[in-house]
């Protein structure tokens, strides 16, 4: 297991390095001069040149890449061009919003999708199955930001139960902070839940015909007991795979949703940084997100071995 984890970690670092190179190159090609954005279009040519020199923009690409990645390696994420603040602090503030948002969305989507998928499989071809398929079809078809707008119309403007946007900050208390995250995480979770419910349904349906389900029935378990106790765990590998694959989609969705709900999260930070050509913020946030995605993928791989004891031997 230790060897497995070490190998996993090495792969993660290599992937992250590759991602950083791609990121750097893409942002380097991106048109727009940060110095020009900072000084405005009326700026004098020599002031611009001086600022470029001060920001290191006149250096060759390789030097700039090494300076960036070397800083990141020792925890120095650089200084934002526009906020004039250390990027590390900016990111930490925003993560306090985005990480709970994403986690809540994953919890909600799993809590909806797995029972719905198992129920659909257990009542295969009957009414409950059709209702769940139809609902998930709608969920897949509707974009999350539009669901967000509908949720605001229903729950904050119509019923007045939850805030329509903004974030009071964790210092305002856990209750109000969570309340501010419920609608956005629901908007993120519902389309994901729709896909996950379908995967769960087909995965469980595949397991239904297995001999050990028949053994479980012969013990006296009802159809749904046999599915929950013996089917689900064996059906879990494709489900966990999809949860892992959905994570980057969730992060991308968070950029839209944070803007719909005016949440000061990483997504909104990336959106603002992009508008202001704040390349250093953009690079750091994108690298962080890439790291998160890679981390989640590794967690998924490790989860496989927890789910299926047969995979453990091969790993050790």
């Amino acid at each position: 297991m230790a060897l497995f984890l070490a190998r996993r970690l090495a792969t993660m670092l290599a992937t992250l390095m590759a991602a950083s190179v791609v990121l750097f190159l893409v942002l380097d090609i991106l048109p727009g001069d940060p110095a020009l954005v900072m000084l405005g279009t009326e700026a004098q040519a020599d002031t611009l040149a001086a600022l470029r020199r001060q920001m290191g923009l006149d250096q060759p690409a390789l030097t700039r890449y090494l300076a960036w990645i070397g800083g990141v390696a020792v925890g120095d994420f650089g200084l934002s061009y526009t906020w004039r603040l250390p990027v590390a602090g900016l990111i930490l503030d925003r993560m306090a919003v985005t990480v709970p948002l994403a986690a809540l969305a994953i919890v909600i989507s799993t809590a909806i999708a797995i029972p719905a998928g198992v129920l659909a499989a257990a009542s295969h071809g009957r009414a409950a199955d059709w209702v769940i398929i139809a609902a998930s079809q709608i969920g897949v078809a509707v974009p999350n930001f539009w669901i967000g707008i509908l949720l605001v119309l229903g729950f904050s403007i119509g019923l007045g139960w939850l805030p329509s946007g903004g974030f009071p900050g964790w210092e305002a208390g856990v209750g109000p902070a969570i309340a501010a995250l419920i609608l956005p995480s629901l908007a993120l979770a519902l389309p994901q839940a729709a896909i996950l419910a379908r995967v769960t349904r087909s995965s469980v349906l595949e397991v239904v015909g297995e001999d050990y389900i028949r053994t479980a029935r012969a013990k006296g378990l009802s159809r749904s007991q046999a599915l929950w106790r013996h089917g689900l765990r064996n059906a879990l590998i494709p489900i966990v795979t999809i949860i892992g694959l959905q994570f980057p989609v969730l992060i991308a969705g968070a950029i839209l949703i944070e803007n719909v709900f005016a949440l000061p999260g990483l997504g909104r930070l990336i959106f603002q940084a992009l508008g202001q050509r704040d390349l250093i913020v953009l690079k750091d946030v994108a690298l962080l997100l890439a790291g998160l995605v890679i981390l989640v993928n590794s967690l998924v791989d490790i989860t496989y071995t927890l789910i299926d004891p047969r995979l453990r031997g091969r790993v050790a």
Partner: protein
Amino acid sequence: MLDVRDLAIAINGMPALEPVSFSLARGQSLGIVGESGSGKSLLALALIGLLPPAAKATGVIDFEGRDLLTLDEAALCQIRGASIGMVFQEPMTALNPAQPIGRQVAEGLVLHRGLDRMGAAAEALRLLERVRIPGAAGRMAQYPHELSGGQRQRVGIAIALACQPTLLLADEPTTALDVTVQAEILDLLADLAAEDGLALVLISHDLGVVATTTARVMVLYAGQCVETGPTADVLANPRHPYTAGLLRAMPGAAGARLQTIPGSVPPLGQRPTGCSFRDRCGLADAACAERPDLIAVAPGRHVACHHRDQLP
């Protein structure tokens, strides 16, 4: 205790099992023999109420005074695993690969006997020892893939016997195992059934398996009971040409050339009119165009063949 009367099974309206009747008291054993497609596994699934949705059973399965075919699902769940245990063919796939075997044995105990986790685990260990799994205590936490085929089948038997059922169904329990292990598993089944005074229904395509294990035998061909009687009697003196053919097809004395029955079991919906075996039978003649009834040829001995007296 078990009284089956005119049990017939149809799949999507096509008859898969023609009406069969038999009864079994505690301590008695019945072997059901036939090739694949003879309806023997459907019969076993009907006895525990787990027929696939496409299959419809008619007739009466009177088990301890209740007709299983008229019971609802909840009542069947009370009986399955509690009063009727079943051992399946494939020990490789019949156990949940993601659950330790101790828990799989204990599950029925929690369900039917209301034991708590600790009590069920202790009882599961006793059962694993009873089915002669060496080092059972150390194996409780192991997963099925860590066990050999024979040991997995022992776990399957422990699961079936967990709640002390009165009827044990074994559907080809040794088919997937090595020959040396087969004999051990059969001995174990026979011993355990005798110790507990169980009624045992053993299903196999192999007359040899049934010969050593059950007192009575029923031979099925293409969904029809063609011969039934005391096992020793039927094997020594078969009266149906199909039974005789099965016996000749068994590997016997060294050097003897193995004989086969020409052709194969007709698929569902393509069974011939009249005697279903006549296309493959050396004795078939015009009389066989009419379906032979099961006729008593001796006390407890029935044969469905117009030429039952022509076999040597």
